């Protein structure tokens, strides 16, 4: 087998999962050590990915069903690091709810493994395998706080709707296989000349399935409920990590086999993008729960990332990747704040619970202020640059309508971010929250805030890294 070293990260993480499972079965009270080992595993995997695969030319493995290129390596590293931070800052939360168990880190590792397979997949079957692996782990994670009704409800809802979308996706795969005779992306791209319309059917079904995974409107219905019901640390995981993987599949699926059919799918993507941006912005206005609000906000943000993908250009892909990277940093900061809103072992998650936060917790609230303005896309914060790159690539393709709708929906979205700021800064104060937080939690908030605030000083670095992504 040639080039087997290129999938060392996946092999390493699978072996670690098995080892940790066995360790968990035979050693009592091992949740802490498994938690720590998992952190180490994620970090080591990221390092291996960085060392082994980042700087190589695009290579395929296993009959071209797995592809290792710059995009996959970059997205894998982002996934791994995001999962690492999630695991790092969730321990206190889990302890509070007495769900600090061995399954949690292992499930996160398995879903990360599924995502890594998804990211590298160049074949419909491999892609589906990865998708199901990560989804199954995520269903369980959503219900992880199983004594709470809402958490079980979230898991069940996620499971039923996700299964439905997987069904649609499989149906699309079978259509494409039927009309091209292959499941491999590269083979498909040479085969579809005769049956363009039939294949378009297949593309639509697969797009529906994928849109469900990234919760783009109109396939977003599960997101608010699941985000609200799941444990906060799992919600943090949901809002970032699966979306990176699904977005990578989006990129690869649309741009490798079906770039020539861009006229067919571009319209769909523009619609998904506009609907997500607008709906996410408008629906978030009435929310009272911060997790629901961030669900709608993430719907809106995925709309912007899709706008980049809709352009059909390399710049568009790069801008989407930049957008997701910056979005992840902002999200980490936001959830770090959310995880700090604890008083007497109860976590608060209503918007009103932020009332007057600025008096008791000036540093926490100034960080949240910066993060929120950045989410709203106000310069000079990182969120503005993320949007700027997206709109630049969109306008380069003369898609003015998309750009204008997108920018107008930022104004609508600004309203609900401002509302949070208003409650923090203009309203009367309540009791103060606990101040003795986990060091990692503080660190993650500080680092993400500083990155957001200082991004404008070194904007070229991220672009340099991302500009090596070259799909077309």
């Amino acid at each position, binding site marked *: 087998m040639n080039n087997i070293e290129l999938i060392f990260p996946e092999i390493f993480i699978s072996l670690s999962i098995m080892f940790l499972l066995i360790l968990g079965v035979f050693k009592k009270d091992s949740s802490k050590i498994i938690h720590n080992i998992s952190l180490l595993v994620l970090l080591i995997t990221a390092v291996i990915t960085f060392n082994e695969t980042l700087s190589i030319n695009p290579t395929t493995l296993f009959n071209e069903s797995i592809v290792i290129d710059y995009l996959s390596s970059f997205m894998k590293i982002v996934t791994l690091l995001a999962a690492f931070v999630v695991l790092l800052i969730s321990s206190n939360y889990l302890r509070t709810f007495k769900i600090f168990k061995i399954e949690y880190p292992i499930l996160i590792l398995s879903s990360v493994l599924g995502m890594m397979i998804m990211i590298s997949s160049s074949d419909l079957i491999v892609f589906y395998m990865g998708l199901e692996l990560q989804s199954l782990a995520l269903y369980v994670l959503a219900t992880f706080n199983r004594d709470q009704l809402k958490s079980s409800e979230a898991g069940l809802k996620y499971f039923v709707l996700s299964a439905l979308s997987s069904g649609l996706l499989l149906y699309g795969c079978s259509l494409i296989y039927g009309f091209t005779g292959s499941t491999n992306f590269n083979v498909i791209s040479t085969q579809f000349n005769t049956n363009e319309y039939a294949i378009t059917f297949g593309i639509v079904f697969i797009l529906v399935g994928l849109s469900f995974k990234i919760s783009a409107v109109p396939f977003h219905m599960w997101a608010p409920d699941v985000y609200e019901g799941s444990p906060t640390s799992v919600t943090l995981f949901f809002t970032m990590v699966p979306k990176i993987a699904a977005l990578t599949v989006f990129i690869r699926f649309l741009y490798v086999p079906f770039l020539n059919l861009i006229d067919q799918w571009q319209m769909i993507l523009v619609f998904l993008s506009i609907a997500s941006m607008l709906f996410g912005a408008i629906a978030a206005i009435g929310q009272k729960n911060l997790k629901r609000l961030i669900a709608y906000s993430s719907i809106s943000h995925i709309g912007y990332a899709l706008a980049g993908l809709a352009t059909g250009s390399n710049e568009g892909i790069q801008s989407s990747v930049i957008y997701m990277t910056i979005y992840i940093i902002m999200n980490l900061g936001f959830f770090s704040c959310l995880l700090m809103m604890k008083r007497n072992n109860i976590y608060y998650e209503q918007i009103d619970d932020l009332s007057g936060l600025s008096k008791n917790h000036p540093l926490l609230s100034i960080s949240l202020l910066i993060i929120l303005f950045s989410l709203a896309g106000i310069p000079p914060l990182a969120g503005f640059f993320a949007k700027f790159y997206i709109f630049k690539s969109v306008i380069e393709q003369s898609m*003015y309508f998309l750009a204008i709708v997108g920018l107008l929906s930022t104004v609508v979205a600004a309203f609900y971010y401002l509302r949070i700021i208003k409650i923090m*800064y203009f309203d009367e104060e309540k009791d103060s929250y606990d101040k003795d937080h986990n060091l990692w939690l503080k660190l993650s908030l500080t680092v993400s805030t500083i990155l957001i605030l200082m991004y404008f000083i070194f*904007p070229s670095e991220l672009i340099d890294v991302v500009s090596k992504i070259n799909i077309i």
Partner: protein
Amino acid sequence: MNFPILSSLILLPSIGALFLFFTKSKSENKITAKYVALFTSLVNFFLSIYLWFLFDQTTSAFQFVEDRIWIKGLINYKVGVDGISILFIILTTFITPLCIISVNNSVTKRLNEFLIAILVMETFMIGVFCSLDLVVFYLFFEAGLIPMFLIIGIWGGARRVYSAFKFFLFTLLGSVLMLVAIISIYWITGTTDVVQLYELGIDTKYQNLLWLAFFSSFAVKTPMWPVHTWLPDAHVEAPTAGSVLLAAILLKMAGYGFIRFSLGLFPSASEVFTPLIYTLSVIAIIFTSLIALMQEDMKKLIAYSSVAHMGFVTLGIFTIQQQGIEGSIIQMISHGLVSAALFLCVGVVYDRMHSRLIATYGGIVTIIPKYAILFMVFTLAALGLPGTSGFVGEFLILMAAFKDNFLVAVLASLGVIIGAAYMLWLYKRVIFGKLINSELKKMIDLNKSEAFTLTCLAIPTLYFGFYPEPLINTIEVSISDLIDTYNFSVASKQ
């Protein structure tokens, strides 16, 4: 030219703000915090005066230019000044320390954070006037929303939340279209560097739409009728220092933008849309002056008068004549001084009586005579009495307007008369008349810091009223060059 004087001007206030951020905001430190802020802004002021001293008035080229790669292959961080922008920078650095001095009574809670907001605001305002790249300009232009939103929202009056939201969303809505236009310009010409764009020019077939996109942003910020409604709300609810910054400098960003970008980048579109600007300006002048007549709240009255004054400014800019644009810039500087002073005057009586209603006052001339004198100076400057800076600007604008369009000029002159009416009526009702409200007898006259700030504003108001030469000398060459370029590109189109 090695010392980056403009970047220092931009960065200094932020460094001061950072310093304040890391000092604990305990009550005994309040005075220290204020001195730190004051010191920072004064250093900035003297630096800007030094800049004016070094400034070469005989050339229209950009001076003190700094050009650094910022986003590789995309945007350069480029700053520089010419005759048009340097006066606004000095205005900004002049008003900010006065604002900081004036926070004594009006801001009682969270003084430290208030000073930080003002200093950060100063950074952004100077950045707007210095930037020579469209994206950098947009960045500063928009970033100013954050501190202003907080200033209105945290330290404002009763309806502060409504006003802060209205201010933020109105301005943001206006600006997003400008962002589309900026990216489109990059796509069309391959650069966002203003100096290069001046040389390259933009294809006339794109100009109209781009002009409208920029206009949507500047019209909200100016503010022009009918999108002026955020201004009275924001002014009324903002604390005194916030109102001063808003009236004196924030509104000028739009006037500056009209000259620098609308005229400079889109000459043929500017010609096309001049009738639109004329119409809106005349409506603004007459309509808002009439509204101002009916106001019972002093701050609201001055806010509406600001809209009317900015109507003169836009009118003057789009006469596209030497006198008109010179008049507009002088009018903006003068309005910056006078409206700042008027808001401070309202702040003075508000701090004592906690009422902004005109009906509360009357007959206070004998009780606080010093205040009455200074208020008189600014009232007269606001209505454009010869000998005050208000006169110079309005006179030049009207002269240019008469040359261009007789009807517009006559209507605008009508606005001057209504302007005199509402200002004098305001003065009469507040200062003269019978002393009915006996509470007023307890009022104390100006204390030292109030007298100092108001005198600081009165001196240039009168000085430039009698002798506007230094201002005109500074801006003359840049404007005549701008007009030459404009005429050339309009003529070459035909």
